[in-house]
């Protein structure tokens, strides 16, 4: 039998320094991350920072995150501990990585490369990689005792785990080395045994992609040569750090089949990777306040409607029956997760009345989670 997730115990646990909220898009990840961070600061007196990826505009405004300077800023109006907030600037974080791993001359070379510009702003996986990078930067400063991370809005929650490795593998991969080798002026030695396939490859792909692109990639690879080691080492260190018991992963989902399925896959992956999965937050359940059964209410509504087809109390009873049935369907979907991942504590949160756009809303959401 699953236990219930005790949100307050988790937020108060001084052994936990990172809480990562994961899940597919549209499940309330950002709200959950921000509300939990605020509660950790106010209820549990922790020095907290929340790293968000793509918050709704009004929430960002109320957290004072409009300034895109890629640095955490204190949130005004927080009592108890402290809360800083920042929004990830993917491009700037990538720039910082390059600067910190190479000479100024080489960095300038990298920045000027058109392919770098594409990689640092649109490459799939860059955002996930940079979220991890920023996370380790924040950890290294020691300024906070709790970092709450809102993971990128991936098409699939698994991207968060896979993308950094994919990017690192790509930058260090066989094809890119081959390309670098076949580009004149490269500092890499020619891998002659691969020469023939390289020629075929280059010919076909130059036609498709345009010659300049392959050249850019090769130059980019060459200028990043020194930083590869640092790149990989850092990604691996961050990944390992996430496996430690100072970290908590929380999966966030809504009680809909697609979101719950995604949550199940992701939970299995976390377990396989030996990542500490501490709970699932099922958001946005239909609130039901009375325990009257849907069936009895429908029967009563029908008999009232026999007297008066627009009996106002019949409308009230039908509304309750509708809410109760909807909630029951949602609980069934959430129960699928409980059946598949029996050891993962759950917390189920009803829809929070209004949309969360300010500290007051975040507090209300946090209270709901604390009470649940």
């Amino acid at each position, binding site marked *: 039998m699953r236990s219930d997730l005790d949100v307050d115990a988790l937020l108060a646990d001084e052994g936990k320094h990172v809480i990562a909220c994961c899940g*597919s*898009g*549209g*499940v309330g990840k950002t709200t959950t991350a921000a509300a939990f961070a605020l509660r950790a600061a106010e209820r549990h007196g922790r020095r907290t920072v929340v790293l968000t990826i793509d918050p*709704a*505009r009004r929430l960002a405004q109320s957290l004072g995150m409009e300034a895109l300077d890629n640095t955490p800023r204190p949130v005004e109006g927080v009592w108890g501990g402290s809360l800083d907030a920042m929004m990830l600037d993917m491009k700037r974080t990538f720039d910082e990585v390059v600067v910190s791993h190479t000479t100024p001359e080489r960095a300038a070379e990298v920045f000027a490369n058109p392919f770098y510009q*594409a990689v640092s702003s*649109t490459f*799939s996986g860059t955002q996930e990689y940079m979220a991890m990078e920023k996370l380790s930067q924040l950890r290294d400063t020691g300024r906070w005792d709790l970092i709450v991370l809102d993971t990128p*809005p991936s*098409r*699939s929650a698994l991207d968060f785990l896979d993308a950094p490795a994919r990017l690192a593998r*790509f930058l260090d*991969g*066989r*094809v890119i080395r081959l390309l670098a080798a076949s580009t004149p002026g490269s500092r890499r030695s020619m891998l002659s045994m691969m020469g023939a396939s390289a020629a*075929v*490859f280059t010919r*076909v792909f*130059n*036609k*498709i*992609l*345009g*010659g300049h*692109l392959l050249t850019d*990639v090769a130059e980019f690879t060459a200028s990043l040569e020194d930083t590869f080691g640092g790149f990989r080492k850092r990604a691996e260190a961050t990944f390992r750090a996430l496996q430690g018991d100072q970290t908590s992963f929380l999966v966030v989902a*809504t009680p809909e*089949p*697609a*979101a719950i*399925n995604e949550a199940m896959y992701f939970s299995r992956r976390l377990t396989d990777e030996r990542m500490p999965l501490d709970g699932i937050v099922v958001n946005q359940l239909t*609130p039901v*306040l*009375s325990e*009257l059964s849907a069936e*009895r*209410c429908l*029967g*009563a509504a029908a008999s*009232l409607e026999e007297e008066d087809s*627009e*009996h*106002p*109390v*019949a*409308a*009230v*009873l*039908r*509304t*309750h029956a509708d809410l109760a*049935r*909807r909630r029951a*369907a*949602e609980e069934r*979907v959430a129960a699928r997760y409980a059946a598949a991942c029996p050891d993962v504590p759950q917390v189920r949160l009803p829809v929070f*009345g209004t*949309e969360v*756009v300010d500290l007051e809303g975040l507090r209300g959401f946090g209270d709901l989670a604390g009470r649940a």
Partner: protein
Amino acid sequence: MSATAPAIPRLHIVTGKGGTGKTTVAAALALALSGTGRRVLLAEVEDRQGIAPLFDAPPLPYADRHLAAGLDGGEVFAQALDADEALLDYLDMFYRLGSAGRALRKFGAIDFATTIAPGLRDILLTGKLKEAVGRSESGRMAYDAVVLDGPPTGRIVKFLNVTVESGRLAKTGPIGKHSRSVARLLHSSQTAVHLVTTPAAMPVQETVDACRDLDAADLPVGHVVLNKVVGAKTVDVTGEQIAAGLERTGLPAGEATVAALLEEYRGRQAEIGAIDAWRDRLEELGRPVEELPLLTDGVDLSGLYELARALRASLGRGGRDAV
């Protein structure tokens, strides 16, 4: 294109913010479009496999496959589009690579090519869509309509704006050339991009933004679908009335029960009241706004057909051609 009679869209691209029910609406639209004797292809991208579970079907393959019976005897086929497979198809078509193509894949070159040029993925995927729209079988169109469960609103313009993306690739290469004909289709009245939203602030805002961006990119916006709408008009009722009604029907009529029922009903009234405001906001976009009900028991196969019928009825209002 004739100026007097705009073509009926044959390519329907469904987009929306995550969680709005984009996949469900795409599936319901495919069912709704597959009337008597009509064949519709329902496609998805990015290996999401969101369609198959809706139909209790096994994962979709790269090649099209029969999925379900449409409304009134039509048929729905489905296909999972994949950029790597599409690139191999192209290489095969233009360079007759045959097994060499497979070798390139093994070597990691296919993955590499679609990775270094992220725009290439979108060109390949939209290229496959165009191919499906134009596909013919024994002298007739294989599909009367193609419905795509598209990328979310945040990425839709980039996904469809293939001319911009292809500008970054080889202009003279076969894919570059092909992408221009894909762009012609996507920017024509044969295509309609439908925006799915729920009655809530963020999804509506994203819909408004996406509509503006699609307009700016000269991509044809079709319908706005307001999904998960809680129905019924509401009436005024007091606690005393509820208590009396409960008593008369033999239900427990304690104070707490009455208060709870009243609060639930007030919540519902507020929800329905708010929907009008969101609907007004969406109607300002000047596109037809269709509404789909929130299904009490969640979306299962019969719920999906219910949505399809609702969609067909509301699309039918503006005449058959309005779709």
